């Protein structure tokens, strides 16, 4: 059983304060969903946690089981169990998924076989595994391919940035199903960032957090999503501090 705790996180992007005291705590096997309007800081959270060079952490703490991630390199954060699935998974020409996963510490034993099995589970054409990372893949294929990475690397916590953007219903279903199974198979904690409720039909959240102006302004169960659906984000809006 692991715990991810984010407390009082302040992050700047290009000199502008985006996250202003973000707090969230979650445990293994749970599904937490972060919802909020554009510009509220959802994606900033994901990128800052994964150590993206364009995001400056000003203050705060992010720990997995007490280990401070913010003191670690992006590589070490990943090796402590944090995985980020990007909204637009990056093309890395010339680098094959298998070589990347082996370099990331995955066991080489029957690695391609295991990758093929994971590809099958998310209905990804196996040929895609032979191609360079994300090169010439459709939006849906990229996200399915990241699910293959996730399943091989088996992180303690997976963050999914705008997981449903650009996905058709089938792809979204495949991705959400795989995540749900991950929460059972190795008690993966899932932190999903989304605009839409559609994802929640496939993946039942433990908690929903509404973000506005760089921090969590409301937390609740699945019923919160219904309220958002009905009333929009306006009732949750807070003035920037």
């Amino acid at each position, binding site marked *: 059983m692991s715990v991810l705790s984010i407390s009082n996180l302040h992050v700047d992007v290009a000199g502008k304060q985006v996250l202003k005291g973000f707090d969230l705590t979650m445990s293994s096997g749970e599904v937490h969903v972060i919802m909020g309007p554009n510009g509220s800081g959802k994606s900033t959270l994901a990128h800052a946690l994964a*150590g993206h*060079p364009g995001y400056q952490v000003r203050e705060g703490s992010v720990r997995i089981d007490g280990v401070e991630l913010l003191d670690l390199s*992006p590589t070490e954060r990943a090796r402590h169990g944090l995985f980020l699935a990007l909204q637009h998974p990056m093309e890395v020409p*010339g*680098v094959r998924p298998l070589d*990347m996963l082996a370099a990331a510490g995955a066991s080489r034993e029957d690695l391609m076989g295991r990758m093929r099995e994971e590809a099958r589970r998310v209905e990804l054409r196996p040929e895609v595994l032979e191609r360079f990372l994300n090169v010439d893949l459709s939006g849906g294929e990229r996200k399915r391919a990241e699910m293959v990475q996730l399943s091989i690397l088996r992180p303690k916590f997976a963050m999914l940035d705008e997981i449903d953007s650009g996905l058709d219903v089938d792809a979204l279903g495949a991705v959400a199903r795989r995540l749900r199974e991950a929460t059972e198979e190795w008690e993966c904690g899932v932190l999903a960032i989304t605009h839409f409720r559609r994802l929640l039909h496939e993946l039942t959240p433990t908690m929903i957090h509404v973000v506005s102006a760089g921090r969590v302004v409301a937390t609740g169960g699945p019923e919160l999503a219904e309220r958002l659906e009905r009333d929009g984000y306006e009732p949750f809006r807070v003035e920037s501090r």
Partner: protein
Amino acid sequence: MTTFTDSAQLHLDALASADARRGAWDAFATLGLPTTADEVWRYAPLGEFDLESFTLVSSRATPTLSPLAQALGERAGLVVRLVDGYLSSVEGDLAGVGVDSVESGWSGNYDSDAFSLLNCALAPATVVVRVAENVSVAAPIVIVHTVTSGAVFPQVRISLGRSSRASVVDYVDGGRDALVVPLSEYELAENSSLELSTYQRLDTSAWHFARSTAYLGRDARLRQSVISIGGHYNRSRNDAEFLAPGGENELRTTFLGSQDQVHDFRTRQFHHAGRTRSTLLSKGAVADHSRSVYTGLIEIDKGAKRTDARQTNHNLLLSPHAHADSVPNLEIRENDVMCAHASSVGPLDELQRWYLESRGVARDDAERLMIQGFFYEMLATLPGDLADVVERDLGEVLGQVRIVTP
């Protein structure tokens, strides 16, 4: 001490076709060595170059094959071996393929290129690999050059008959403190198809001045890769000329520069005829204090309608002291054509590296993967087995390169 000129005169006296060769020699003597004042040589460290310090090899050496040459040969259907430009052996047998060593002539070509003129005067012979009409060669042909020392002038011609197909790998190594001046011509008859890869692994003390010209007949297809690792100064000029409509040429040139190497690549895509297509991709990486220049010319004759010619050049800087230049040129005398060129110079992409790191890949490993990846697509013309050998070797070379992120 024997000078280059003395050894060249002795060599010329001993050759059968001395008259034609003396024509090339005289043309060279009139032209003289280039200087960096000459635009096409402005990036070459010619100030350090002392032609007279090299002498022509007078005795036939029998060096052992390097492990890499051996590995390539084992995966070939036919191995043509040259030592210091002399045909030394032909091993294997492929139906429809002939290999001869013929007396070199000089037809007045290359009259403004000093090093090619020297080759025409001094090449021991022309090694000709000929593929008969309508033959689809079953296995790769590997040409292995071993260079021992001194001044070496290999001359090779690959000639494909109508509607034939072949895959050839041209490999060179050795050459400590040597001057290596290869001259190659590729003749592709109507509807023939050649996949050709040159892998240059000379010692980093060698001076290498290579030139190749492909002549494409109607509907002929040439896919060519030139991969250069070695040489103190490595000059590689690769031309393709479309003599008739319908031909296709895909050329990839690539290099890895380290220490104080200079890689000087030149290409010329010359469209005399219409409905022809050429695609040029030049990619290189420079580390340490190395430098590179890529100069590409697309030339399209009047009347060569519906020509499609493209040029792309990407350079990777692996050290703040390394430098890469890119010089595209277009000479287009016809309106009904499609032409494009693009180039870039820069360090490894920081965000791609971060993406790999965020999966748990260590920074050093991420950089290695990306640099290897930068080169992988350049190996596309190598047949499967041989590609594995070259890929492994390239991986080892890349593993030794120092990467300094700015």
